């Protein structure tokens, strides 16, 4: 029995529009999202005040947050603001649920975009919404998962290793196998980035065997990509390549996604480890292109540093300088390095003198690598 009902703030009956079939609601939601540029306040209100359409709209946004994070973030923020100004929406706890869900989507999309401060703020709002719903546990657990992902992005791997196992148990109790698998995947990534590569490989193998993987090719591809990267870190390059080959068709939708961009970056790293610098450079550029298309500025900046290093190794210093100059503003704006990080100042100075300092570049890459 949920004890959270004590904090519920149910209102009197609210109109929620004519009930629609799932197909009708999905069609209306698609029309609403496709009309983004020509939407008036009235048409927004017409669409979103029907709770079935609003539910479907939020579901469609969830499906797109990894492939179109910027537009998903914009839409989710728009919906959240609209809900804030609309007292009469949905039945019972639905307004709070919709507020929580819109904020959760905005937070997750911000996380993909690398806007960590925004992401955490939206996740706080999501928590505030979900807390007032009848069944708060799934929403609150998802918020905790997203927060740990942000901590992972910030390089706080010890926190992830410490807290994620408990969240995995929560997801298991809540019968959310896909979320449990995703949580285990992030745990394995944190172990890998903490230097516990063999532990990470053990976890990745276990996640890959989860029954839910069959119906979730994108997550399976991410598991394979991470496994490949862990194998590369232990110099098992051929095994790594085999994992990447297995992952690639699972992501072959032709559309840029965070998973595809990560895979391309890992493949590039493996080629670089094999000394195939030209091939590595091409793969790094493909990854950077995906990250830029997705609006994932911090990841694009990190790959920019990798490209720059590879260009220096190929004795192409002018192009390396250009890549550094592209990446540095994001690195500083998004606080990807601590204030006054010496390598950044040295690098900027050396680029100004048109003599890129490879040691400063390596130091910056190593610092960023710990977070990526």
């Amino acid at each position, binding site marked *: 029995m*949920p004890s*959270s009902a004590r904090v519920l703030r*149910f209102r009197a009956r609210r109109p929620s529009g004519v009930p629609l*079939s*799932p197909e009708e609601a999905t069609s209306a939601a698609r029309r609403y999202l496709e009309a983004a540029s020509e939407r008036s306040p009235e048409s927004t209100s017409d669409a979103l005040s029907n709770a079935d359409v609003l539910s479907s709209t939020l579901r469609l946004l969830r499906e797109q947050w990894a492939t179109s994070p910027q537009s998903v973030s914009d839409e989710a923020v728009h919906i959240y603001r609209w809900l804030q100004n609309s007292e009469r929406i949905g039945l019972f706890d639905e307004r709070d649920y919709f507020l929580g869900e819109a904020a959760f989507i905005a937070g997750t999309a911000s996380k993909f975009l690398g806007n960590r401060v925004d992401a955490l703020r939206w996740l706080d709002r999501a928590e505030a919404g979900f807390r007032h719903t*009848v069944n708060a546990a799934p929403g609150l657990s998802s918020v905790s998962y997203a927060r740990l992902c942000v901590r992972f992005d910030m390089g706080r791997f010890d926190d992830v290793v410490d807290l994620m196992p408990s969240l995995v148990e929560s997801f298991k109790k809540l019968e959310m196998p896909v979320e449990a698998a995703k949580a285990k995947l992030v745990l394995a990534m944190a172990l890998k980035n903490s230097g516990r590569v063999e532990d990470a490989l053990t976890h990745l193998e276990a996640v890959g065997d989860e029954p839910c993987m069959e119906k979730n090719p994108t997550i399976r591809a991410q598991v394979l990509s991470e496994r490949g990267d862990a194998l590369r870190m232990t110099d098992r390059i051929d095994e790594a390549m085999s994992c990447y080959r297995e992952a690639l068709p699972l992501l072959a939708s032709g559309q840029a996604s965070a998973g595809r961009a990560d895979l391309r970056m890992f493949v590039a790293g493996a080629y670089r480890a094999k000394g195939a610098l030209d091939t590595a450079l091409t793969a790094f550029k493909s990854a950077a292109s995906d990250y830029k298309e997705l609006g994932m500025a911090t990841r694009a900046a990190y790959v920019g540093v990798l490209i720059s290093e590879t260009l220096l190794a190929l004795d192409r210093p002018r192009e390396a300088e250009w890549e550094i100059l592209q990446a540095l503003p994001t690195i500083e704006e998004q606080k990807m390095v601590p204030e006054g990080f010496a390598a950044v100042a040295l690098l900027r100075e050396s680029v100004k003198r048109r003599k890129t300092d490879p040691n400063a570049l390596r130091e910056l890459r190593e610092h960023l690598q710990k977070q990526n």
Partner: protein
Amino acid sequence: MDSSDDRVVQAEADDPFELEIRGVFQGTLGLIHLALVTHYDLEELEAIELEKDLYVWFVRFCARPGNFSPSQSRPFLMVACCQFAREYQKYLIGTGVREPNEKLQKLLDREPNDVARDFNRNLDFLNLRNPDA
């Protein structure tokens, strides 16, 4: 639920998930009606209107990401039922439309989730006696 709500019936006719939701709702409807009319003193028509809303809410509730299956979500349906009935009666009493009797006042003083817990015990008992219901 009022069976005249053909639109809702039609919308879910082909979808196994929604058929399951409908089955769970109908299996709980007797207890919901009892809670609303006998315990929370709602009038018949008020109860029927609320039951329609509860059904629409329950369909969307079961579709929320991460929620349990419809049959496992039954306890939440009872919480929603008691919560709304309490708010509704408090509103009527607060605006002077209705006078509370002692029994109703005692129920309104209790937390809806506690009341729902009692109802769910009855539901568990009924399920034990008739597991196919």
